[in-house]
């Protein structure tokens, strides 16, 4: 007697990306208008009962656009955490398939899995243009395939009752009909001076800089994205930890030059001043060295 079974396991939520819990969320550092828009939306969601009484529904779908590294994912995660919901960060490569028709199936399966999940989940699409690109006149079979799955996506987003947040670097690449299904549109710009100071301070922890030096450094990093500043701050911390172990030259200018050589901003985002000036930048000249710990920063020196 032989029994043979090939069991196709039902996909689980983990098959489509990473499920982030509310407690893992970091504090977003954003410009005032973006924070205002987000707080408005949060308040609206919290007021669901009152809105329903007035025959309205809170908006549940948001599209975040902005340059790479401006904190779209952090923002979405903060929103999910604020609502007390886990967030599923879908990965395009887990949804898009090389087989004809399979991508549409995967999209359907993703929404089914999220619906069946035992608690509500905020569905987050990063690099949304990968799945929601413009439909076209189907001159090639690849166009037809894309049209088919964009249609599926459109329907499923329409039917989905939960929160959907999509993020894209290329807002203009998103299909118009899909764009219209999103009722909150938030554009995230590169951080301004104030945000840059806070971002640097956060990522330099446990080290810190006096206010004046922090301000100068943030100025020297104009047009830098949060991701770039994080890279820079973490790179500096790494140098401070590793350097003495491998006998590097740990003088300030040498350390900064070494650091800048290893990190390059994307050409399209513009090169912050720090990269053209290097260690000669006066922001570096004002930097106390060795770098003090944040709790030991002396802040009474007047800015020069």
């Amino acid at each position, binding site marked *: *007697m*032989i*029994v043979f*079974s*090939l*069991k196709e396991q039902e996909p689980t939520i983990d098959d489509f990306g990473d499920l982030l819990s509310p407690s893992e969320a970091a504090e977003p550092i954003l410009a005032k208008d973006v924070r205002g828009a987000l707080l408005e939306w*949060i308040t609206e969601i919290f007021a669901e009962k009152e809105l329903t009484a007035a025959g309205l529904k809170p908006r549940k779908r948001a599209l975040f656009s902005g340059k790479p590294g401006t904190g779209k994912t952090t923002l979405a995660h903060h929103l999910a955490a604020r609502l007390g919901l886990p967030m599923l960060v879908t990965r395009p490569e887990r949804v898009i398939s090389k087989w004809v028709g399979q991508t549409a199936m995967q999209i359907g399966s993703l929404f089914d899995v999220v619906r069946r999940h035992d608690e*509500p989940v905020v569905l987050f699409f990063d690099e949304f243009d990968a799945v929601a690109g413009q439909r076209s006149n189907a001159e090639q079979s690849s166009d037809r395939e894309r049209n088919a799955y964009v249609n599926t996506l459109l329907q499923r987003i329409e039917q989905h009752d939960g929160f959907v947040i999509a993020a894209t670097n290329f807002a203009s690449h998103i299909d118009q009909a899909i764009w219209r299904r999103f009722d909150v549109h938030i554009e995230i710009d590169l951080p301004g001076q104030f945000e840059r100071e806070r971002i640097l301070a956060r990522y330099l922890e446990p080290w810190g800089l006096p206010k004046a030096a922090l301000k100068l450094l943030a100025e020297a990093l104009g047009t830098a994205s949060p991701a770039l500043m994080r890279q820079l701050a973490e790179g500096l911390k790494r140098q401070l930890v590793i350097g003495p172990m491998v006998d590097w030259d740990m003088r300030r200018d040498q350390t900064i030059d070494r650091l800048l050589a290893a990190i390059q901003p994307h050409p399209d985002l513009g090169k912050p001043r720090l990269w053209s000036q290097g260690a000669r930048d006066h922001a570096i000249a004002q930097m106390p060295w060795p770098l003090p710990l944040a709790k030991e920063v002396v802040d009474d020196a007047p800015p020069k």
Partner: protein
Amino acid sequence: MSTLGKNTPQSAELLGFVERVEKVNGEVKDLQTDRAAIFAEAKSKGFSTRQMRRLIKVRAMKPHDHQEDEAEYDVYAHAAGLATEPPLLRYMAKAGTDTAVRDQVIEAMKGFVPPHGKGEITITMEGKPVRLARNKAGDVELLDVKRPLPLNGKPQPPRPRRSKPDVPDVDEDGAEMLGRDYAKANRPVIDNPFPYGDDRRARFDRGWRKENGGDGMGPEED
């Protein structure tokens, strides 16, 4: 051979060869008659001579050549729509009795095992059933089947829920007070202990913001 002619030594040699072949031909004829007689005898006892001929042909082949021949035929027959079951399944039918085949079946099925976490193959044969699953490194592992096989596709037990922080037993005003306390203690607004959909979550959030003066997204620009 230019000197071949009547009464030459070569002519005698030629005649010798011809006569030898004629003799063998005669023997072949006798043997064929014998063979026909054996088939006739077998037929008279009810055996199918057609199948006997087939058997003789197969027996004459090297075992390896025969196996290859069969496998190739199976594939052709399946492709042409003649075979009702795929060759692999037919081969596997032997696995019930033959342990060598059983091992070969397991080996053959390894290629069909889906990626890690995507599914697995359970093979139930004579003896102990085995489970084929890929580990994280992508290698196929043979595992024991512990629980009854889910052949009938019954739903799996639900996954354990994420552990929730204890929800404080307070009313809405209490939740707002708690939010204020969290803000005073410098705890982030996302530490809100009330679950999604609970009205107290919104009140906690509001209390936190009132006390802190900010929107919960860090200090604001002056």
